[in-house]
């Protein structure tokens, strides 16, 4: 695996390589290089099986991490090509011409994260949700619990007690306690 990465880094600007398992490596490349690296891996290195495409929302850094995971059926190894794109107006070059199923992934990512893939077929169609008007649902800042509570109204009538607070109320309501707990009570 290491030889391959060394070989690739001559041609491609590989900024980071993580050897997760002997058979699985993640490499990071700049946004512009990703598609050409994926093409190169497919055409010349035998990584012909497209396993999956995924996205991770690193909201703290304002980045989306895109992953193209490729498998080499000959050497039985996997390589994950990672690239970071801006969260604002996220856009990535489409890879639908490389494998037939890629457009499905891109369509899903468009809906779930709001990443645009110009030129990818049916990329604007609804995929799993219908008539969605909120922010893309897989983004980290979308609070699914809050949305669910405001939209689908859980059955009322439930209340719970924290054992420590309840015991204090019952057993020693007037004793001095830690400042933090007093804040919590308010």
């Amino acid at each position, binding site marked *: 695996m290491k030889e391959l990465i060394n070989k690739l880094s001559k041609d491609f600007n590989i900024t980071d390589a993580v050897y997760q398992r002997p058979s699985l490596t993640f490499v990071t490349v700049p946004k512009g290089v990703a598609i050409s690296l994926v093409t190169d891996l497919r055409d010349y290195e035998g990584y012909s099986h497209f396993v999956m495409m995924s996205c991770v929302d690193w909201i703290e850094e304002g980045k989306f991490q895109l992953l193209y995971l490729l498998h080499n059926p000959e050497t039985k190894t996997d390589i994950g090509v990672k690239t970071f794109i801006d969260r604002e107006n996220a856009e990535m070059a489409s890879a639908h011409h490389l494998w037939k199923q890629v457009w499905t992934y891109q369509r899903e990512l468009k809906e779930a994260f709001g990443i645009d893939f110009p030129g990818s077929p049916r990329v604007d169609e609804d995929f799993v*949700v219908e008539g969605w008007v909120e922010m893309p649902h897989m983004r980290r800042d979308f609070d699914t619990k809050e949305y669910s509570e405001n939209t689908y109204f859980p059955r009322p009538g439930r209340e719970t007690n924290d054992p420590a607070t309840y015991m204090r109320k019952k057993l020693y309501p007037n004793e001095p306690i830690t400042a933090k707990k007093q804040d919590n009570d308010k």
Partner: protein
Amino acid sequence: MINKFLGFEPDKEKLPSLTAKIGDDIDLSSHKYQKIWLGPNHPGVTGNMSVELWVQGNTVVKAKTHVGYLHRGFEKLIERRLFVQGFPTSIRMCVAEPDTNEYLIATCTEQLSGYDKAVPEMAKWLRMLSLEMARLQGLLRGVPGQGGTFALGLGVQWGVYLRDLILDRFEELTGARVYHMYIIPGGVRGLLPDGFKERMEDNLRDIDDFIIRIRRLMFHNSVFKKRAKGLAIVTPEMVDKYGIVGTTARGCGVKRDVRKDDPYLHYEQLDFDPPTDTDGDVYARTWVRWQELIQTVDLIRQIMAKMPDKGDIKTPMPNVLHWKIPKGETYVRLESGRGEYGMYYVTDGSDKPRRVNLRGPSYTHAIALLEDLLVGADVADVHGIMVSLQTCPPEIER
């Protein structure tokens, strides 16, 4: 204009077409074509999905898969749950073979936290047993189910009964019929109950009998042969192009099996050879799965013979309530009854995963591949093709 605005129609100038050429210039107002929907509440559909079909007479000229009827947002929900809370949620990602999900989420967390070497031997064998039993119950539904789609309902009656016997064994072992919630990070949740192996052996003998009967019933049946032969042919060239895996790939002669290629658990200690066929049509795929049925029964026997009698079932781990996993990412795969089934798992050092992404074989089979295979097929064969690709909608939309 509004079509373009709402995105129902892609800009044809800009992009090359992927769907079949014929599909793009379908003018419904010409009255030569008709549009019909198959699903979501069609009894022939595997699970809850729909296919929008443009037909000319009986022939499909264009197809579009619509999914999302079973969308629950698992990947979002798991991001809100502790690592140990992941398995009850993940198992529901695919109801046909639930154990695969448990195994994946457990293995991902173990690999990232460094406990993968610490999983006890006994737990590994029990994991294998439960995975193979899950494959067996899936096949018992799937193989005769293929006949069912071609109006051969009798096999289904037999198969579902035998599957129920396997579910009874699951109930004994794991405490539940369908959602077993048995494989947890660090191990499994119980040893074999007393007398399990004997009862299992009884069931396997029934299944042996069934395997022979179903061969006579389906594969020697002229109606089934006539309908399944030459239907929806997948060629070896298509395998990499579409990302085809599992029995669908093996059905056209491309021998890919994660259990052999990248052995996990103790599969390297078992003696088996993934079955293949060369035709690549519905008949060949079903035939491969029938052979796999024999093989799975054999594997379960091998596992039960080789597994130790006693042992630890779980490795000691940190308190699950505060378990944190350092930042990292991994991809773990296994061979499910439908093919390569994998999970991409990202952690960020907190007590909850950052991202969990499931890669199910149906994701590629039921959308990109199915839409192309359906073109030219008879309307009556549509769900036969769907079943032969082992479509499982919940794993597409999660």
